[in-house]
């Protein structure tokens, strides 16, 4: 088939300009309403559960999962579906274990919760370290992906693609803070869900709206094995380790956690998780249909020829079924998706730098509103610049493992400290610092020694650590380090405050 991918078509440019104009208009509107720190970091805590549910979905559904999972299903069949399930199952866990206490205890960042009754300086620095490390790995993967995808779809040079993502998303965060970022996420989530729904409808329309017929076409072309588990999950320990990272990593992602402060109370936080799980679940439920449709209608050979990783499966099937105009729309939606995710990451990075490091670790909590907002904006520019720089620096590198690494660090460094600080009276400053340090260090070290880097990237013959994702070791190690350090050191003030904290955790008394 002939494709206009890689050349900027009129429809792609129009859709792209409309989306950018719309989001910048929203940013202008939001900028008028961004005065206090609570506006900048938490959208004035006035976001409704439905809005926050959409925004959470927008933060989470990245271009990598939209294009990546479609491609994986198109090229490797059923194995792509296994991935899709892994991306969803963290959401119920987030609800059951963290969501409500997080909303009740914190103000702007997850470090607020960890540091609630502990010594501010060491815990803030440790939490900000774990959070920023997670965000850097995540944003690096997003930026390199963005550069590659935009080059593939619009034919823009890589560096320009990365830079334009950086500039537009900086405009959102810098001027509109969390209010603009929230609305950008909502717009993006609606566009993405709409685009994928139309795409699914178009695919199914070719098979008389029967899934069985679609599977039949895939089976006829690539054999029944395309619909059966292949080589992805063979070692159960490896698969469970990846599953743990995906599930509990979500509970330690700073940009997701900070969204819970944008709603008025714990009840609203709870509802927003239900909405988010619904939208994200729907997304991962129908994405494989697009992938199977691409392999049946476009064919694996052509998909692989355009991009060996299969990332262009969704745009290609969109062009085949909806013509160039629909391809333009889907390409613009993918671009908006990247922008929104990077904006959310940047805001979270800026809040760790300014709220945790500047306001609390350096100024001991004593900084005026104006000062805090000014520092937050400087931090936004710093984090944004680092993101662009990393994107350009890692051009051409295989960074797919970076997302897995971000989730492993989040699950091993941020999540154990967060959970223990909420539920365990004896948990203290030493425990928090050790838990974060051990979790972060071990997850990074083990992934370097794993087949993912040691063999695939550094070309050694055998890996020193056998698993592809380290979470099954590094996450329990994070818990163990926190447990042992807390028991070795006594901190009576922290224990005493635990009771007062419980009223806030469960009843919301004194919550922001």
């Amino acid at each position, binding site marked *: 088939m002939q494709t206009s991918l890689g050349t900027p078509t009129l429809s792609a440019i129009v859709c792209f300009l409309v989306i950018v104009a719309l989001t910048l208009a929203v940013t202008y509107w939001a900028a008028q309403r961004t005065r206090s720190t609570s506006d900048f970091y938490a959208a004035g805590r006035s976001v409704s559960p439905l809005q926050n549910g959409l925004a959470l979905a927008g933060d989470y559904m990245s271009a990598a999962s939209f294009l990546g999972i479609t491609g994986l299903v198109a090229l490797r069949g059923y194995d792509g579906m296994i991935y899709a*399930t892994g991306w*969803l*199952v963290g959401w119920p*866990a987030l609800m059951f*274990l963290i969501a409500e206490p997080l909303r009740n205890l914190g103000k702007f960042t997850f470090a607020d919760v960890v540091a609630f009754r502990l010594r501010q300086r060491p815990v803030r620095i440790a939490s900000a370290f774990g959070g920023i490390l997670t965000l850097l790995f995540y944003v690096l993967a997003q930026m390199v992906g963005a550069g590659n995808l935009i080059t593939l779809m619009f034919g823009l040079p890589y560096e320009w693609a990365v830079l334009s993502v950086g500039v537009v998303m900086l405009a959102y965060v810098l001027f509109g803070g969390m209010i603009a970022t929230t609305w950008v996420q909502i717009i993006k989530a609606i566009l993405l869900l709409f685009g994928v729904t139309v795409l699914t409808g178009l695919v199914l329309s070719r098979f008389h709206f029967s899934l069985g017929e679609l599977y039949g076409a895939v089976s006829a072309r690539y054999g029944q094995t395309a*619909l*059966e588990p292949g080589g992805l999950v063979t070692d159960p320990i490896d*698969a469970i380790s990846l*599953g743990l990272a995906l599930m509990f990593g979500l509970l330690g992602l700073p940009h997701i956690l900070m969204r819970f402060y944008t709603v008025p109370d714990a009840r609203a936080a709870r509802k927003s998780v239900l909405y988010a799980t619904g939208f994200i679940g729907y997304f991962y439920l129908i994405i494989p249909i697009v992938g199977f449709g691409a392999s049946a209608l476009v064919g694996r050979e052509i998909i692989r020829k355009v991009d060996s990783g299969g990332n262009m499966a969704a745009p290609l099937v969109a062009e085949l079924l909806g013509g160039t105009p629909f391809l333009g729309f889907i390409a613009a939606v993918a671009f908006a998706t990247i922008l929104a995710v990077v904006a959310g990451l940047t805001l979270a990075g800026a809040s760790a730098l300014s709220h945790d490091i500047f306001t609390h670790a350096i100024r001991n909590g004593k900084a005026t509103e104006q000062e805090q907002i000014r520092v937050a904006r400087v931090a936004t520019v710093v984090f944004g610049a680092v993101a662009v720089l990393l994107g350009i620096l890692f051009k051409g590198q295989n960074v797919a493992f970076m997302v897995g690494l971000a989730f492993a660090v989040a699950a091993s460094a941020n999540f154990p400290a967060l959970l223990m600080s909420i539920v365990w009276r004896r948990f203290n400053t030493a425990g928090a610092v050790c838990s974060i340090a051990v979790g972060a260090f071990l997850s990074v070290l083990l992934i370097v020694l794993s087949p993912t880097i040691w063999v695939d990237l550094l070309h050694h013959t055998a890996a020193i650590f056998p698993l592809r994702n380290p979470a099954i070791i590094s996450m329990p190690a994070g818990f163990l380090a926190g447990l042992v350090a807390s028991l070795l050191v006594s901190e009576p003030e922290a224990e005493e405050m635990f009771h007062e904290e419980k009223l806030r955790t469960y009843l919301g008394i004194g919550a922001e």
Partner: protein
Amino acid sequence: MNVSHREVLNAPEFRQLVARRWRTSLILTALLFLGYYGYIVLIATNRQLLSHRVGAFTNVGILLAAAVIVGAWVLTAIYVVWANRHYDPDVARLRARVRGN
């Protein structure tokens, strides 16, 4: 800590509230684990079962993947319904006691 705070903290109703909250979420977390990791272990150990056809081309594996996603959402919904019906009224009662003093 003022008196009413201590009173509520020591009240059996508050202790029960916290215990019930964690019992509910841990049961749901256990079900989530059973569903998701059970599915993963099944893929690794019993390929035959997942390849077993249900329709002309549809197989158990495809249905299970969809069931994991739908099941995860259903568990979330169960928690929300439980919290709205049982947790929130108790919280409101205990909060009123704190404000009352």
